[in-house]
């Protein structure tokens, strides 16, 4: 799907038309539909960004125009019209549900199974006017946020929206933004660099162990970070942080396309643990209305003995395209990737990781658990590269697929590039099916067919679930069961 010459011309003509005339009107809360240099300028102006950031966005935008949408992943989705998207504050959609009565009852059932309070359900389901009320009512955001902040400030930890960090800590943002995922990296990354509206910024100073798990959960909907989220986390020497992204409740969003970028920078002897539960709306059983989730996540282990763990539970979205990666630059640095990807009905997931070993004695572990049910297709795509100087580097990969029923598929695509003779690479892959015997055994002990399935699949995922922070793990376990509903019988 190339960006045709025609599109470029169209874009240019649009930009021409809006030049200045539109940008000067930054009082406006919304920008017109479509993408152009002016839209990029508008976003930057709205955020009162410094010149360097605007320049960076524009470079990204111009580069994006020359790129083609990737088509190598094993996913199919209708062609995305990038001129048919609002890049800044879409006008309020009129048919937002007015109350929970108007929300898909199936979605509500899932909420109640997860034990989510009513007010919070309204936020998640996108009920009109719910966000503000609910944020106070549910998260008690003022008190939570302040106690939270005070403790973090005491330690010197910075945890704020990235737009705020641009104002308050421009030197840190300028130094690290795009240093792990340059705008030239890939199509969706370039798009994100041009138009990102918000996301999280974290800086852990030297020698600090972040006193609590940092969670975006406190921020959902408060900031409406939307479809082009940008996250930047920096762990300075000898520091540690555990960061939780997402939440287990399926979130609806009017924006079909999500293209986030997450950059992690880990310095000497520092560690970042990054856990994600992704449960965007997958669409109905015909796949209608689901989110397309194209994410670029990458960690640079720059320091010696630095460490990154990516743990993800992917159950949502119609289409997922995601490869959290580690660049193991510092000697003895460690990269880990633990993943559970569940696809049901017509969902498609192409996910995996890249471990790029550059430094000496670097090591990486990959444990991927893919579960497919219904007519879903799930692909693990993993790259392990041992650079020329990566003496004594090691990788161990375990890639297990579990099939439920016979209409789904699981695919494993390992890429191995070894330029160093002393490097060791081990790869194990298995594919299994949930057997009738196992289901019957559980049912004979009193579990329903669905409970049996949930138990068996949770067993299959155990090694990865164990890597999640405790409270996240409990929720994720429930989620595994719920995601597979309708997959048996």
């Amino acid at each position, binding site marked *: 799907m190339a960006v045709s010459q025609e599109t470029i011309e169209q874009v240019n003509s649009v930009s021409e038309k809006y030049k200045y005339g539109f940008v000067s009107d930054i009082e406006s809360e919304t920008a017109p539909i479509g993408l152009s240099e002016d839209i990029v300028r508008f976003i930057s102006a709205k955020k009162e960004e410094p010149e360097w950031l605007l320049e960076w966005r524009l470079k990204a935008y111009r580069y994006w125009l020359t790129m083609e949408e990737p088509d190598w992943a094993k996913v199919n989705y209708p062609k995305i019209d990038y001129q048919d998207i609002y890049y800044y504050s879409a006008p309020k959609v009129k048919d937002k549900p007015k109350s929970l009565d108007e929300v898909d009852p199936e979605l509500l059932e899932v909420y109640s199974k997860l034990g989510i309070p009513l007010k919070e359900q309204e936020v998640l389901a996108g009920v009109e006017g719910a966000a503000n009320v609910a944020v106070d009512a549910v998260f008690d955001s003022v008190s939570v946020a302040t106690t939270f902040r005070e403790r973090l400030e005491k330690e010197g930890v910075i945890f704020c929206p990235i737009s705020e960090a641009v104002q308050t800590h421009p030197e840190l943002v300028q130094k690290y933004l795009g240093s792990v995922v340059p705008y030239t990296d890939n199509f969706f990354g370039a798009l994100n660099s041009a138009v990102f509206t918000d996301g999280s910024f974290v800086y852990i100073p030297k020698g600090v162990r972040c006193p609590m798990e940092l969670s975006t959960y406190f921020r959902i909907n408060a900031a409406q970070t939307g479809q082009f989220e940008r996250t930047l986390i920096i762990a300075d020497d000898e520091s540690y942080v555990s960061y939780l992204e997402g939440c287990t409740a399926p979130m609806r969003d009017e924006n079909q396309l999500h293209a986030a970028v997450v950059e992690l920078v880990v310095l000497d002897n520092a560690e970042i643990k990054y856990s994600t539960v992704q449960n965007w709306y997958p669409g109905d059983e015909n796949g209608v209305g689901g989110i397309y989730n194209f994410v670029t996540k990458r960690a640079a282990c720059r320091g010696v003995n630095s460490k990154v763990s990516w743990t993800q539970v992917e159950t949502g979205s119609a289409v997922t395209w995601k490869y959290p990666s580690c660049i193991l630059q510092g000697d003895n640095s460690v990269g880990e990737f633990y993943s559970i990807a569940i696809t049901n009905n017509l969902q498609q997931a192409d996910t995996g990781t890249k471990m790029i070993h550059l430094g000496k004695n670097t090591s990486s572990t990959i444990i991927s658990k893919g579960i497919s049910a219904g007519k879903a297709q799930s692909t693990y795509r993993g790259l392990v590269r041992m650079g020329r100087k990566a003496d004594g580097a090691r990788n161990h990969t375990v890639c297990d697929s579990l099939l439920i029923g016979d209409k789904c598929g699981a695919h494993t695509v390992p890429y191995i590039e070894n330029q160093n003779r002393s490097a060791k690479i081990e790869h194990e892959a298995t594919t299994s099916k949930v057997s009738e015997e196992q289901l019957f055994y*559980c*049912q*004979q*002990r*009193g579990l329903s067919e669905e409970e049996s399935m949930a*138990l068996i699949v949770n*067993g299959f995922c155990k090694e990865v679930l164990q890597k999640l922070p405790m409270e996240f793990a409990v929720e994720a376990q429930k989620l595994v069961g719920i995601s597979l509903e309708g997959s048996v019988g």
Partner: protein
Amino acid sequence: MLEIKDLHAEVGGKEILKGINLTINPGEIHAIMGPNGAGKSTLSYVLSGRDGYEVTGGSVTYKGQDLLDMDPDERACSGIFLAFQYPVEIPGVASATFLKTALNAQRKFRGEEELDAMEFLKLVREKSKELDIKDDMLKRAVNVGFSGGEKKRNEVLQMSLLEPDLMLLDETDSGLDIDALKVAADGVNRLRSPERSALVITHYQRLLDYIVPDFVHVLADGKIVKSGDKSLALELEEKGYTDISAA
């Protein structure tokens, strides 16, 4: 408790049960013996509702209800427990988790309060001690890497915890050493009560020295060809099935 009338069933399109008649009253223990491939396990699967075991004729009434109309989990929750001839492995699921999930599912079905982690732990420790099962086994994944005998003992542990009304034991003695056999039989005997019944499938009369049955039946080629009291088992041991069936 259980009334089986002219039960016919097929597996993979082949008729295996060819007209079984059997009545089990509360408190009774019935032993079933019979040659390999006679249909003993098939009978236990039909009673517990396994997929693929298709009933083609006859009826089964359990506690006055049409058993064949119930889902497998409903049967389990109504008190039917099958100790499997070949217990199934469930990787990644700790035995304790499995037991707790099962017990609470059954309690919920009966409208009883679910046990919390502490209450459960106390109960399961007590039961496993009775059966000489080490705590360490409860932490391991269900049946994964268990020895043949450990698997069988684990079945008895599950049964002791779930306290069923109708116990179906499919060759629970096979693979147990002599000491373990006694321990397992004690486990079954502890559950014996005037309200509780059992169907014990075995090849060896030795088990019946420990679990003394009220009736012994010989199942051959899908039919009960002979019934008697416990002396029938001794007779079988002596003469083998061919003579008995012919007699």
